């Protein structure tokens, strides 16, 4: 495949002092908002050393999604590098790497072409260099295992012997990608980089960083969202061995709660500085604080959900196709159901923490962040720093799931380092971590369908009411935002369709989560479709396939089309793999859901057993996935396994409740997570094709939730319309 390059000046080859070929880049993704830079600055992406080792920069933060392996794999593939002689180097934050964040399942989507283009350009340069040096025609040369090989004669030259020549060759105007059938790295299960370090405790997470003269810190935040501090007494805390200082953190002095759209500032509280983490954890418990909660709404979850329910009848229309009222009048049957999903925390395994050395007008940060750009912006706003006064390291992260899209904890750490004049490692306790999260929005959702006499849907109304991420915390002045989008499923599939949004204001801090909106909305949509199947006395998969209709491209919005065939393919595959059409013993049941997310198509079947008390045991999960080309099957499968587990955990146990304006839960005893014995085998099959790879971090999660709820119905006849499931179980 040949592509004419619009811009080839994004890449530059130089020879370093040590004689290595250094390929610098200034990347620009295809994101529409991006401007072409006026001046190109270069940072290394590839380095070919004189000893034949190839270093590849991993540009995005590694949060456990495997991106530190996957992006270099793509680069190495097009380059023709020998993976066994590749060193992967984690990048610091650097704007020339572009879109250097982890979220929305975007990393592969945004970087696939970039990595291929950069790798292929360098390969072409090396081939040209070899052609000159070997005096052979370009067409007869290929790159393989870090060599340029002349297939006919078997002659070859290793990359490192071409460094000088390559650095003098002009960059190609056309880039030619390798054909997929010649892939040697992409499509293979490659064990993740750093595996040996992970299994021996040798990875340095941000929480492990230790700097000379460093002090430790922890914080006690006002548990009430948006509260302040009236006064505090710290005599007892100061008596704890190893305590160095107690510092009040008041965001009013630092631009309030919101310093930039994606950079919420810290919550008001008191910090303890000490010579060890334990000293700070011990002392923080001895603080006596009088909190100022005068500005809190003092909310309780029950009351919040009453407001959500009320708001179902006071909505704005987010999408309107045809006429749902007309459909209602002509329907053979009108049917509706109301679903409820709770607020959810992230509870990343590595709690919020950050290490900052902010001295001499230079701020160096070791941040477990999914969003270094927001972190830089926050630091610039908070302290009036210029980008060149900030350095952000991106260590491996103990889980993100959307929590680390926000950088509040890093703001804390930076202020503490500035105030103490020392490097500070701030560690939040798990309790602070759970109580000061950016929760997945809870919501109430009503779906009403009008069915014709064949039972097919002719009208669909989906009303969602909640407090939205977009107006949460200090962002109330902005547009209301919505948690139901015009492109949500089943837009385009029903002639008369209406999406409505009822907006409620709340103090509860809301934010991203893994598949944030889909994780909530899929529960309502796919449980409702299951209900419709049973009303029509049809098999849920048969009904779903009829609902989808024939294989075709369904226009959804703008030029976004939904390829029905790809969804049908995964549905049929999972039907077969899960033995869907075989009978199960009494008390057991199967549930199904299938969706598109982040460009990928996923169908899941959950098989469960129940005991006489209704207690659920998940026996197995089957998933069929079409995410286009699978870059790294081992890593991709891990994302599916992880997404499914997270969906199942959320469905079974996930719930954050609020009392008097503060989060009730605080640790893993009351914010439960599934244990190993509850996790069944997960059987994943990827559909093989040559379509460009799409996102995989999020899409496996949403279908697991309705699939489990539907399995419970199949097993027990009990409809779960309100999560979590654990609240429905008899003890």
């Amino acid at each position, binding site marked *: 495949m040949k592509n004419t390059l619009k811009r080839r000046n994004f890449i530059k080859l130089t020879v370093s002092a040590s004689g290595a070929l250094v390929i610098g880049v200034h990347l620009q993704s295809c994101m529409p908002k991006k401007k072409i830079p006026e001046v190109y600055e270069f940072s290394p992406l590839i380095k070919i050393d004189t000893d034949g080792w190839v270093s590849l920069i991993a540009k995005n933060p590694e*949060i*456990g*999604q*495997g991106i530190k392996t996957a992006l270099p794999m793509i680069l190495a593939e097009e380059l023709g590098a020998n993976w066994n002689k590749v060193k992967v180097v984690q990048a610091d934050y650097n704007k020339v790497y572009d879109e250097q964040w982890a979220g929305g399942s975007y990393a592969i989507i945004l970087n696939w072409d970039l990595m291929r283009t950069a790798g292929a350009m360098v390969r072409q340069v090396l081939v040209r260099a070899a052609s000159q040096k070997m005096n052979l025609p370009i067409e007869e040369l290929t790159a393989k295992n870090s060599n340029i090989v002349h297939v006919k004669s078997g002659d070859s030259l290793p990359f490192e012997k071409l460094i000088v020549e390559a650095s003098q060759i002009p960059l190609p105007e056309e880039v030619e990608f390798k054909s997929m059938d010649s892939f040697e790295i992409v499509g293979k*299960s490659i*064990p*993740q980089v*750093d*595996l*040996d370090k*992970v*299994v*021996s*405790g*040798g*990875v*340095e*997470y941000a*929480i*492990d960083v*230790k700097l000379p003269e460093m002090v*430790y810190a922890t914080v006690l935040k006002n548990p009430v969202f948006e509260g302040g501090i009236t006064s505090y007494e710290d005599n007892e805390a100061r008596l704890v*061995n*190893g305590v160095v200082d107690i510092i009040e953190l008041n965001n009013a002095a630092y631009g309030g709660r919101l310093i930039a759209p994606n950079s919420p500032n810290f919550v008001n509280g008191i910090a303890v500085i000490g010579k*060890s*983490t*334990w000293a700070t*954890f*011990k002392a923080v418990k001895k603080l006596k604080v009088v909190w100022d909660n005068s500005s809190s709404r003092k909310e309780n979850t029950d009351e919040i959900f009453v407001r959500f329910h009320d708001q179902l009848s006071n909505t704005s229309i987010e999408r309107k196709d045809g006429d749902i009222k007309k459909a209602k009048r002509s329907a053979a049957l009108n049917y509706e159901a109301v679903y409820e999903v709770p607020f959810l925390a992230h*509870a*990343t*395994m*590595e*709690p919020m923490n950050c290490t900052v050395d902010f001295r001499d007008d230079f701020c160096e940060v070791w941040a477990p962040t999914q969003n270094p750009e927001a972190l830089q912006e926050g630091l610039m706003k908070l302290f009036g720093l210029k980008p060149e006064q900030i350095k952000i390291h991106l260590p*491996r*992260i*103990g*889980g993100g799931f959307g929590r680390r899209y926000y950088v509040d904890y890093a703001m804390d750490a930076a202020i503490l380092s500035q105030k103490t004049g020392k490097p500070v490692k701030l*560690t939040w*306790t*798990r309790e602070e971590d759970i109580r000061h999260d950016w929760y997945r929005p809870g919501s109430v959702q009503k779906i009403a369908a009008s069915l014709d006499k064949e039972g097919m849907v002719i009208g669909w109304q989906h009303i969602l009411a909640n407090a939205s991420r977009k107006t949460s915390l200090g962002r109330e002045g902005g547009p209301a935002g919505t948690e139901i989008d015009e492109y949500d499923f089943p837009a385009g599939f029903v002639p008369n369709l209406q999406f409505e949004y009822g907006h409620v204001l709340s103090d509860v801090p809301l934010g991203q989560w893994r598949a944030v909106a889909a994780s909530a909305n899929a529960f309502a949509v796919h449980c409702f479709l299951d209900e419709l199947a049973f009303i029509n006395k049809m098999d849920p998969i048969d009904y779903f396939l009829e609902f989808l209709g024939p294989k075709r491209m369904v226009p959804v919005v703008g030029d976004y089309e939904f390829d029905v065939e790809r969804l049908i393919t995964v549905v049929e595959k999972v039907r077969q793999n899960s033995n869907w059409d075989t009978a199960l013993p009494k008390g057991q049941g199967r549930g199904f859901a299938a969706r598109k997310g982040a460009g990928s198509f996923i169908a899941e079947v959950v098989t469960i057993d129940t005991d006489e008390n209704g207690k659920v045991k998940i026996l197995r999960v089957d998933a069929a996935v079409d995410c286009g080309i699978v870059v790294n099957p*081992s*890593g991709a499968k*891990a994302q599916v*396994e*992880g*997404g*499914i*587990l997270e969906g199942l955990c959320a469905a079974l146990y996930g719930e954050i409740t609020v009392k008097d304006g503060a989060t009730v839960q605080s*640790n*893993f*005893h009351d914010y439960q*997570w599934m*244990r*190993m*014995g509850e*996790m*069944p*085998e*997960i059987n994943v099959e990827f559909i093989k094709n040559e379509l460009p790879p799409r996102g995989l971090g999020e899409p496996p999660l949403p279908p697991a939730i309705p699939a489990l709820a539907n399995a419970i119905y199949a097993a027990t006849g009990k409809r779960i319309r309100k999560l979590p499931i654990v609240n429905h179980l008899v003890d």
Partner: protein
Amino acid sequence: MPSYTIRVNNAEKTVSVDADTPLLWVLRDELGLTGTKYACGKGLCGSCTVQYKGNAIRSCTLPISSALEANITTIEGLSPDQNHPVQQAWMELDVPQCGYCQSGQLISAATLLSKNNNPTEDEINAAMSGNICRCGTYTRIRKAIQLASSKLDK
């Protein structure tokens, strides 16, 4: 502050800390053994698991004053060269995702196999029930323990 001598990965270490300091923080902050992780501090998640007197214990709830009697094995001391059967199996099956829980998982798994080198699936689930994996690596961990066990059996 009192001073304590403990044995960690077969080396004696002396530290000056309060008697109630959990072993976890001695390992991490005093001895620089950061492979042992903090995640809950309440014995709920297993991230801080180390081996002590042949058992998998939660170092976040074990005060140093109660850890003086025997050698403590942390993830750093599990093997010199990542060649403990559980580490080998973990790498073969590409188990970790974020990796943060994995030190604790590996220590629990190694402890289980040291007592029972051919555990059933139920025994594995029971022995590992104190270790949370937020990312969902449970199925791979289970397989890796079975793989390690099959290697030990030979």
